């Protein structure tokens, strides 16, 4: 394996994940106020529907698909053992990929043309949207040109990713992949690296906890019973809100 492959498929992932971890933690702790989905629906709502909804639902499904193939490759391979099921999986993934592409193009168009949305656009928004566009384009091309990804991802790429996570990097298989796939992989690591510096951080604060919490929330500055108890020092009744 030559030096460039070594850098792209062994060095880069570790650099990317290191930046991701340090950057995210730093951003959340030091500038937590800025962690927001920064919705611009208030400024423009109609076009957003046709862009945001296909993009988000599409990317959710595509991401979960990649995640499943990474976590349980044997399950995916078992599913794909029947050609019809493999076809169903491929077509579904491709359809949601198209959905991502349509939404993403819509989002970029809206961001560049709507004068109000332009005012709340920063450079990183454009950068990340273009990176995602490259990623989606490469992904769709792979799905079309290098069939059947659902199977070879589970067979070849999943072990590679595991080798990265288990600190036993083994990139020979990847180094032999066609260009589009390499691009998709390298771009993915780049997205992970810039992740903490973009609006994508809202993924990390997705409100899953809403499902299990009671609707109403009351917060007390201090414990209302202990505060009247002369035996308790105030230091024991720390506020629960800061």
């Amino acid at each position, binding site marked *: 394996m030559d030096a460039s492959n070594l850098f792209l498929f062994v060095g880069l992932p570790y650099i990317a994940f290191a930046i991701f971890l340090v950057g995210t933690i730093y951003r959340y702790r030091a*500038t937590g106020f800025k962690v*927001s989905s920064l919705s611009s629906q208030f*400024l423009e*709502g109609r076009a957003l529907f046709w862009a945001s909804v296909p993009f988000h639902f599409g990317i959710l499904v595509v991401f979960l698909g990649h995640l499943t193939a990474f976590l349980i490759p044997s399950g995916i391979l078992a599913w794909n053992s029947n050609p019809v099921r493999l076809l169903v999986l491929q077509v579904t993934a491709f359809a949601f990929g198209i959905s991502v592409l349509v939404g993403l193009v819509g989002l970029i168009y809206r961001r560049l043309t709507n004068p109000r949305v332009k005012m709340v656009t920063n450079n990183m928004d454009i950068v990340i949207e273009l990176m995602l566009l490259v990623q989606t384009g490469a992904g769709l091309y792979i799905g079309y040109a290098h069939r059947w990804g659902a199977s070879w991802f589970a067979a070849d790429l999943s072990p590679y990713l595991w080798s990265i996570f288990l600190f036993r990097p083994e990139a020979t298989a990847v180094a032999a992949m066609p260009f589009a796939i390499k691009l998709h992989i390298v771009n993915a690591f780049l997205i992970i690296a810039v992740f903490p510096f973009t609006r994508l*951080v*809202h993924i990390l604060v997705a409100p899953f906890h809403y499902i299990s919490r009671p609707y109403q929330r009351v*917060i007390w500055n201090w414990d*209302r019973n202990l505060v009247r108890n002369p035996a308790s020092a105030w230091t024991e009744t720390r506020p629960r*809100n800061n």
Partner: protein
Amino acid sequence: MDIRAQISMVFHLDKCIGCHTCSIACKNIWTDRKGVEYQWWNNVETKPGTGYPSKWENQDIYKGGWERNQDGTIQLRGAGKGKGLGNIFHNPYLPTIEDYYEPFTYNYLNLIEAPPGDDQPTARPVSMITGEPIDVKMGPNWDDDLSGTPDYARNDPNMAGLSPAERQAMFELERLAFFYLPRICNHCLNPGCVASCPSGAIYKRGEDGIVLINQKVCRAWRMCVTACPYKKSYYNWHTGKSEKCILCYPRLEAGYAPACMHSCVGRIRYLGVMLYDADQIEKTAAVPDSELVNAQLSMILDPFDPEVIQAAKANGIADSTIKAAQNSPTYKFVKTWGMALPLHPEFRTLPMLFYVPPLLPVMASVTETDGAQKAKLNPIAKTWTDNWLYDTSTEELWGTVEQARFPLKYMAAMFTAGDEKAMAERIKKLMAIRIYRRWKTVGDVDEAKARKVLADVNLTELQAEDVYYLTSLAKFNDRFVIPPAHREQAHEMLEFVGDRRGSTGFGFRETPARGM
């Protein structure tokens, strides 16, 4: 019994002169920043009118508040766990800036720096979002004083139940009237915004019931904007955080009145503590429409009742708070005298700001001075030479409740979820006190009548004097009865004093800047 204290406000609508000083005081303190130019945490609306944002009371459009299901449970109309998370990528019920207005300023510099030319230089309006010239189509108080106008007053959602004839009568040229409705966050007991927030950023403070948005936890899922039926949670388009009225809690904690109240020219506002039973919230919010007002009022407990006091103390409520609850002007208006009502109780958020409905404006009727009419005449009534007069005698001034300038049905749609009887009771009380005071001061009402009207509405003479005092003569300390926060017990409150404007909710030192 889980007794909690709630800071609540009463607005005496008869006293509001519509000067918008409260709105300006609030704006200058809290919302003069980028991204919140359009936010009016306090605004004053002309009623009948469409309000701000336009037609906010129409929940068919905005889907705010709670709705009652067939089985007697309630759910958020446009948000909640299912709808909120399902619509998180695009909230179909989110009002956009068109429903408010695009904030604008004027290009004033052009007036002095324009090069010589054939035309007078002008200051064109420019958008405060894009900086481009815009045509101003809406602005704050756009429908101010525009009662009777087809676009505004006649589109008032509260008139939905009125027949065309009744509407017509409201806008007859000689009878046309309006009143003002100042609105801030209602600091509800069953707040829709809190329930709708996927991040859990919005919460009600236990000690005083103020509803706040933790700016550090807000992630711009923007469901609170939809869920608040009063549209008092606003989205800051610059920082990507929702913001709302904080009842000037930093001022309250230090013993100062909120800016809107402190600046009120008409002295229409009263701020006091009320004790309520938090165990009743869920049950009360789910009663049928017709019982809503009474159910909500019955949650508010008598602060003189020894049992209530004991339970309050057991719940950690300070003695000074209990004492304030006993002297509370809001408790008097809402419970003791039964004169104040919540705004739109049918939204089921149990709003804790109350309104004394307007009796005014009264208007002398124009009559011809002949026969019977003349015999009734007060010597001071003004007669014109053509024998027409403005009859200012008492009966003509106040007439009956049914002849009130604003139809009972209209007022009931605003304050009692359609219960006209409950509305009439309040109006009658206001009238009775006026007639009683008319006897005392002007003397053109006889004593027997004055006493009879008081008895009719179950007010004693002493109570009538109290109402009169608190309405007309009350000093600041009678209208504002709030104990300062107990800092001696809460050292925590002294932390994070580096609060900045824009950092609503609990403080933090980070600059509230837009994220990447």
